[in-house]
């Protein structure tokens, strides 16, 4: 009997799939003029697969994901919808379509339907719930957002972004005490999430904790709205990995560097260097990748090129100075430290590095001056306090 039911179900699936007599949509064919050759070639090849197999969900899905990777959203939407229609059981296509529609400005009802469908297919996949929570939150459906973030936390209690999202929604719902708890939990897991610190500042402000709010504000300001990435292997594999443009390669390289994958980053940066010749930012990241791989001479050359291309790129100047200090000593590093700080004098760590450099050159007065700048910007900077005490002691002695 069970076998019969299974057989019937299978037949039904086959019939449903096979009977999709909706005329296949026109295969999107956006103008490729002006695109990087690598992107145009990839789009052309991927499209050919759909032409060859117009009833293949995989081919349509791959084309949709490739369009999505290069932010051709209308084309991506059409392809992913077709892929989902051809294979309604494949989680990937409905999930990626939900993401595309979210970015394109779909309303809450449509996104609830699409993400809900995806969640039913993969009830274990927390990223669906986090994205649904974000979508509902931005569209003003706060109870639905709260429910989604809680569902994400049921799947993974250590998901910092879900705690943060929940905290932000609770705060908007006026539940400030609960918001503080959720945001504090988020920050236990990811203390470098500037957005969570910002929300915590507001929540503490709301409950009358002025000092706590001020401290959280300071952290938020220091970190910006940086947040850790959410594990979303489906999106990474199907969309991010398909991006071959210089812009996408550079973005991927930055993520890889942050994850410690310097060799992978170097591959992406080679693409970005080819597509963005003379871009100081690319040269700066190249320097960082080489430095991470221990290839100091190539790193120095890249930092120098970045500074040459854009003399006001303070961070590249500082990175150059730091590496020169380590490799060639303080005398070569000093002018670059000074140049970096002339461009951006608000970085306590840079002042500390300058002070160390001056100290190494025997310039005690200059070192003390640098350390005083550190403590003006960051009064609790321990190493600066210690070195300053030491230097002042020696001066008195």
């Amino acid at each position: 009997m069970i076998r019969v039911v299974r057989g019937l179900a299978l037949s039904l699936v086959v019939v449903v799939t096979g009977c999709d007599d909706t005329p296949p949509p026109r295969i999107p064919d956006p103008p490729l003029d002006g695109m990087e050759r690598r992107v145009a070639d990839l789009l052309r090849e991927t499209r050919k697969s759909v032409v060859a197999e117009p009833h293949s969900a995989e081919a349509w899905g791959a084309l949709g994901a490739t369009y999505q990777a290069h932010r051709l959203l209308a084309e991506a939407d059409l392809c992913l919808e077709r892929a989902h229609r051809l294979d309604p059981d494949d989680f990937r296509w409905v999930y990626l379509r939900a993401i595309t529609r979210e970015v394109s400005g779909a309303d809450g009802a449509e996104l609830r339907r699409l993400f809900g469908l995806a969640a039913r297919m993969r009830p274990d996949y927390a990223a669906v719930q986090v994205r649904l929570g974000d979508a509902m939150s931005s569209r003003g459906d706060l109870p639905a957002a709260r429910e989604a973030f809680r569902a994400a936390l049921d799947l993974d209690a250590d998901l910092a972004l879900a705690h943060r999202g929940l905290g932000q929604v609770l705060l908007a719902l006026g539940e400030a005490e609960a918001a503080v708890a959720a945001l504090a939990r988020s920050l236990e897991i990811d203390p470098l999430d500037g957005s969570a610190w910002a929300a915590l500042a507001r929540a503490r402000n709301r409950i009358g904790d002025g000092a706590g709010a001020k401290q959280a504000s300071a952290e938020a300001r220091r970190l910006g709205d940086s947040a850790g990435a959410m594990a979303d292997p489906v999106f990474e594999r199907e969309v991010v990995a398909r991006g071959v443009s210089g812009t996408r390669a550079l973005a991927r390289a930055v993520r890889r560097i942050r994850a410690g994958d310097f060799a992978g980053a170097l591959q992406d940066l080679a693409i970005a260097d080819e597509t963005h010749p003379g871009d100081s930012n690319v040269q700066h990241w190249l320097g960082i990748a080489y430095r991470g791989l221990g290839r100091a001479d190539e790193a120095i050359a890249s930092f120098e090129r970045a500074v040459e291309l854009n003399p006001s790129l303070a961070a590249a100047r500082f990175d150059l100075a730091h590496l020169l200090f380590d490799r060639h000593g303080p005398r070569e590093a000093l002018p670059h430290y000074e140049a970096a700080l002339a461009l951006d004098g608000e970085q306590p760590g840079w002042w500390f590095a300058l002070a160390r450099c001056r100290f190494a050159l025997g310039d005690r007065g200059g070192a003390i001056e640098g350390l005083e700048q550190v403590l003006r910007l960051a009064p609790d900077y321990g190493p600066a306090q210690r070195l300053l005490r030491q230097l002042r002691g020696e001066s008195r002695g």
Partner: protein
Amino acid sequence: MSPSRSFVFLGPWLLLAGCAPAPVDRAPASAGTADPWFVDIAAESGLDFLYEQGTTGEWAMPEIIGGGAALFDADGDGDLDIYLTNGNRDPRGGVPGSDPPRNRLYLQQADGRFVDGTERAELGDPGYGMGVAMLDFDNDGDLDLYVANYGRDRLFRNRGEGRFEDWTVGAGIGVDGWSTSVAACDYDLDGHLDLYVARYVVFDPSRFCTDPAGRREYCSPEAFPPAVDVLLRNRGDGTFEDVTAAAGIDRVTGAGLGVVCSLLDDDERPDFYVANDLDANQLWIQQPDGTFEDHALARGAAYNLEGRTESGMGVVAADLDNDADTDLFVTHLTAQSNTLYDNLGAAVGFEDATGQRGLATSSLPFTGFGTVAADLELDGDLDLVVANGRVLRGERLAGASLGAPWDAYAEPNLLYLNDGRGGFELAPEGTLPGDVEISRALAAGDIDSDGDVDLLVANLASAPRLYRNIAPRQGRWLAVRAIDPALGRDAIGARVRLIGTPSIEREITRSFGYLSASDAVAHFGLGVDPDVQGLVVRWPGGATERFDVDGVDRRLLVRRGEGRAP
């Protein structure tokens, strides 16, 4: 320059009551219809302007940012004139070169047409024009003009009767780089109007930017360091002092595009709010010693509800839900909604209420720049208009007819109707003209003196639009101009509250939106059966006076010192 020499033109304004009310020229009609609310009269009025971007094919970022506009009475004849900033042929460096395109002044004639008065007024600045601010910096009763450029900014002093002189050097102003929007207000309450100049980025034309598909595209502001905003304190002797560092404004930087000056906490000291492009917004709260601290993070106005920085463009500060405090509305890039920061009171700060107020989804596909909060159909609440136009190419929308490459940047503008409680819904299609263009500045004022608010839209790659309001009226109106005779000028920063029904408050300001300046009038839609018993003016600094109102559908002029205790 003394107040006694002022020639504040008061012709069409009724000193309190005493004159017959102007007739309601259109009968109230039901809301929610698709009747057009506006008709474009730019071409028939003689506005023959085209913003020259100087496009070189190098994708220089200033090409896609500019386009400022102002509505003001330049020549003191009592009607609104138009000033439009222009680009030039060097979007990479902003250098005018020989025979450059210039900003233009259009003077309104008695028949409502506009004629080019640029040359006579000597207002044809050739800089790469961004925003514009209007202020009577010398308290002589006429409006002077600050032009924000990509390049050196300019201050033009009105010598009277619509003739101007370049007073930049005389004023001691040396603002260079990339200025955008400018807010003029008397932040230190010394009687002289000061200037907050929002500044964008330290642009490097050698940067090579592409979109995710690898096509050349305008850079994101993230490609450049943000520029430091500038605060110029008016010394009262015709010169300005750069107090940016002394006031603490340089402590936090952001790529500033929009700025407003208003009372944003619980004291009478004016504060500033800056909309930054991909940097946290700044809420500069003025301290008792005249310095500023950025409280945006703790007060919930730095990031959106999800804790993300957004691409802030234009901003208005107004009471959008009629609860007697100042809310903030910021326009943004595509895939980010425009954001409404609801003011929950000084102790709490602001909360992103965009989604709950119905403003999220409909703005996601568009890139918003200029914005105006005005009661367009006179029903007693503030509606929102957003001027849209992309900075990154997208799919060509139906109705776009600018040609390549600009069709890929053109979008329709949006009008949101207020439900009276601060909830908004998109007006039915056809309410706002469906022009699909690259819109930037949006200025508001009663151009035809018929009691409702008209709109001026500055566009890139196409002519400006002058939208005359023909909305079916949902009520009566009052327009209040507040003058401080001791200063000889409009009391910028004054707040006008109606007593009776409806009980609503508006602020006297010219500076809001994006790269724009508007008419400094507190305009009230009153609904169909108003019972306005008077009005209370809270003058800058906090002193209040009550004035009687014995009729509606009229323009009122109130003078400080001539009212009575509330």
